[in-house]
């Protein structure tokens, strides 16, 4: 019996492998479910992985390989920088591409029309962050990013919005991934003592930063972006993560239908799903739905169905697209660290 090939384009080696692996796991869960229900168009679905290593050149190789493997569609896209040059490749080959994590605004003009971004853009998140932190009474803010496209983009957007709202940005700081020791930045933050600190990058380094901030006695508000809403933040930051706010798409924990996903993930992989797991899962499910709806593997038909997605509920919320194929809504929610787990903070 023939199987239907779906591509997953994420980093599985290099410094970002953690996140890529997390996404593959989630996609695999979705595929297992689809196959358990009889597959798509009567065929079992199987995955082909394309490792980008978060390197543009390698991701071009990976994408070309997925194209050569005759995949029906591709899910993934983690690093924006590495996702960018692949858009043209999938465009030329006319393959539907669900971008589950990468959300740099730079991707939009380069999209030939076959790619769909199911993660809200950085602009949406920045707006939410500014709104929430202002409401908490913060007037001065220090933003810390990690010098990559995603977190720098979010930092810049947030800074613009924050200033526009009449508040003061004390400074934008940049750290490097994997540095471990953030004491120098912490001292700098302590010396200017802003009302809030906003970490725009990922949980691993974020956890260390938060830990060191609190250890040094910083008492202000700490907030983190959607790259850091993982439960693993608590492993790394420990006590210090208590009271930290996170901006996030509604993740697995906060939707009734996601409970079983989280459980399955725990069971299969021995740890909690990371920040992009639900979106990756959704991406696969969305693609599966579109293929089923289209009733064929014809790309144009699948793309047509995706365009017409009309707010159907998925794990991470309803999906419908703008005319540039970005998520039509922003449904960022705010979480708070409490007792070693995330709870809703905005309800």
């Amino acid at each position: 019996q023939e199987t239907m090939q779906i591509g997953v384009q994420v980093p599985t080696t290099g410094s970002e492998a953690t996140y890529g692996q997390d996404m593959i796991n989630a996609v695999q869960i979705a595929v297992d479910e689809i196959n358990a229900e009889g597959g798509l168009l009567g065929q079992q679905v199987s995955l082909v992985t394309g490792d980008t290593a978060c390197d543009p050149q390698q991701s071009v190789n990976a994408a070309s390989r997925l194209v050569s493997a005759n995949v029906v569609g591709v899910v993934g896209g983690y690093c924006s920088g590495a996702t960018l040059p692949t858009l043209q490749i999938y465009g030329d080959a006319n393959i539907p591409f669900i971008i589950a994590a990468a959300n740099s605004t730079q991707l939009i003009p380069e999209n030939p029309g076959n790619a769909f971004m199911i993660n809200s853009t950085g602009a949406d998140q920045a707006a939410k962050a500014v709104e929430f932190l202002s409401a908490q009474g913060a007037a001065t803010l220090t933003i810390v990013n990690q010098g990559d496209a995603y977190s720098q983009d979010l930092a810049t957007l947030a800074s613009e919005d924050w200033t526009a709202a009449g508040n003061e940005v004390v400074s934008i700081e940049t750290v490097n991934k994997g540095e471990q020791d953030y004491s120098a930045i912490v001292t700098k933050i302590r010396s200017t003592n802003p009302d809030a600190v906003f970490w725009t990058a990922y949980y691993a380094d974020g956890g260390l930063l938060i830990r060191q901030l609190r250890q040094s006695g910083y008492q202000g508000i700490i907030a983190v972006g959607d790259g850091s809403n993982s439960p693993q933040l608590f492993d790394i930051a420990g006590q210090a993560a208590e009271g930290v706010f996170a901006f996030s798409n509604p993740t697995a924990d906060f939707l009734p239908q996601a409970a079983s996903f989280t459980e399955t993930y725990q069971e299969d992989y021995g740890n909690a799903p990371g920040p992009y797991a639900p979106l990756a899962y959704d991406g696969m499910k969305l693609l599966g739905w579109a293929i089923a709806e289209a009733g064929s593997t014809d790309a144009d038909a699948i793309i047509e169905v995706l365009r017409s997605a009309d707010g159907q509920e998925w794990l991470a919320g309803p999906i419908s697209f703008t005319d540039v194929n970005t998520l039509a809504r922003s449904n960022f929610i705010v979480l708070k660290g409490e007792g070693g787990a995330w709870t809703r903070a905005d309800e």
Partner: protein
Amino acid sequence: MTAFDVVMQQIVNGLVLGSFYALVALGYTMIFGVIKLLNFAHGDLYMVGGFVGFLVLSAISGITGGGWTGVAISMFLSMIAVGCLGVVIERVAYHPMLRAPRLSILITALAVSLVLQNTVLSITHGQYTAFGADFGFGGVNLGNVFITYNQMILVGIAAFLMIGLEVFVSRTQYGRAMRAVAIDKDMCQLMGINVSGVIAVTFLIGSALAAAAGTLAGAYYGSVWYFMGFLIGLKAFTAAVIGGIGSIPGAMLGGLILGFLEAFGTQLPGIGSEWKDVFSFAVLILVLVFKPTGLLGKSEQERM
């Protein structure tokens, strides 16, 4: 915090960071000193050291607790285990290459680095692992400058290891032999020095120091990760060179200087912290332009 407090606090920060750099740089420098190899796998031994420390601590914390006693024991065992790993790596990957062109061993070292990283990657699936050490955040306040007990213990252990090593290498016959092996292996043999043995001991000590640093870092920062050795490996290499590669006091000095540069680079007036690495590298280059053998490196003059 006054400007003075900030400066003092950054000095403390630089000292702690510098101690880690120095510990790793020492191994770099020793190994370079003996077989002229830039051991790019050294940072990964630091990483493996962190994981071994974690495993040991998980096993014994039931008895010892997660405090300093447990961490000290984990560190010690990790030093032994990783020291042996270093020796094995030397035997398998470097020893057969000792008479090959120098740069070839560099590639072997890079390959070893990839092997270590990717082995741990496959085991941990790239996840961060919480280290599980559990000690308080207590400390002393000197004005507005806060120094934790952990920081003091950390710097103390690092200083102890470094001074011990320096004494060993500069004062003992064996240490002298280490330096001699770097220069002329055949002549060393003729003087009765077991060259292979000396090289093995060098790897043992160098790797053990990296493991000590790795375990301490895991405990101090709270987590370990398969890629944690990469950056510090580069930094240690840099530190070793600033101080004068091959020189043990140089590695210590270089580590501390780099620590201070990074601490103060973050606080550079007028430009943001994103330039701090540019700043440290620029200083490094300037140092080398004016002092081409590093701060404490001896110039290797050749007679004609």
